[in-house]
């Protein structure tokens, strides 16, 4: 079984320099992890490339939202993509 979306997002974040891995949990905010807004943009880019999705510009909020917020955003983007790909499936 492939790793969960949450697990994949955590791994993508962990690859960045300077991430405090001891606090890398779904409930941590990017600020808790020591990620500034410019690092966050690169992390979001990695996530977009990995899942081949586009995340909205302003939401999730990079500074105050949690890692789980990013996971949820990826999930919604993947759902939207699946729906677009199979519009007649339901």
């Amino acid at each position, binding site marked *: 079984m492939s790793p969960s979306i949450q697990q994949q997002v955590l791994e993508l974040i962990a690859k960045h320099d300077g991430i405090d891995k001891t606090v890398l949990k779904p409930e941590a905010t990017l600020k808790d992890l020591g990620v500034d807004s410019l690092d966050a*943009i690169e992390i979001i880019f990695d996530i977009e490339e990995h899942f081949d999705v586009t995340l909205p510009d302003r939401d999730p909020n990079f500074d105050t939202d949690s890692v789980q917020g990013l996971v949820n955003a990826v999930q919604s983007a993947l759902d939207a993509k699946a729906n677009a790909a199979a519009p007649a499936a339901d």
Partner: protein
Amino acid sequence: MHRVVITGMGAISALGHNASECWQGMREGRSAIAPLRGFDESALRVRVAAQVDGFDATAHFETRRLSLLDPVSQFALVAAREAVAQSGIDFSTADLAQHTACIIGTGIGGEQTHDASSQKLYAKGDTRLHPMTIARSMANAPASQVSIEFGIKGPTFAVTSACASSNHAIAQALMLIRSGRAVAALAGGTEACITYGILRAWEAMRILADDTCRPFCKQRRGLVLGEGSGMFVLETLEHAQARGATVLAELAGAGMSADAGDMVAPADTGAAQAVQAALDDAGLNATDIDYINAHGTATPANDPTETRAIHKVFGNHAQRLAISSTKAVHGHALGAAGALELIAVLGALNEGVVPPTANFIDPDPECDLDYVPNEARPHNVRAALSNSFAFGGLNAVLALTRI
């Protein structure tokens, strides 16, 4: 050491095709930011830009010459012609041509030519490029074209420092004239950076506003790209007086610094260092300054950082300064930004009115100075600064005084 004055100005931007239209737009706080034109907007997240509107290159240039002119050079030539005409300077006299410099800043250069070439090569699989692709797209093309147009034969080159390119270029001209290496200069900046590739690159930074540009305001959502050019005739005060020229202002000093820190996040210390250096170079005290045309990009990072830098340098006088960012009306024209904003400073010095920061809604507690929101203000401006702080941590500030 020679005193250096400005005797001509020219501009083209989303606000208009000459300096007077651009200044009117700034003074009225009339934003030229509009829905993006010329691109399939369903494919882009960028919604708005400050694009030069209704520009017909064939009305300005012969068809034969146009094959050598990327829009970045076209804009520079249009602005330079206006500046030279206003100044009344004649470069064919005596040995003035050899003692005139031509220094033009650009952040990117001939990007539209690059973009079209890439389309041809990679999208269409057509391997034959126009023979003048290099001559059109090189970053020094605007400086070379302006030198050719006016027969300027002194030091001529391009300066590139992203959003500070114009101010760095004008600072180079100031130093050449002051030191006697040149008697006059055409200096300024130009940019024509709104291409599909560049828009995509800015999108990726997640730094563009989707509504409009609201500098120093709590509801600001990022910068809005602009384009255009501003060009100026600089000369020694003696030379201007000897030929009976009208002096628009004295270019009293310039200050430059590098943050030597982050490639994109600005530092208040680097900005403050450049502001202080401009004051020192001009022999001005902080309390002499009446107006600052701010860098004011409306990004989350720039505006509070710039505000802190101004506090650092000006202390109590910071609260008495009129400060505005005209990027709210002409967008962020990157390498042309400082030159367009010098038009605002010259207007403020000569008309005694400070152009507003347009599109302002509510103040941000982190930006606690007087940004002249929305309405121009009559103000006796005797001395002013123009700030430019670039990606890469490169800062250049100009100091201007009324003469």
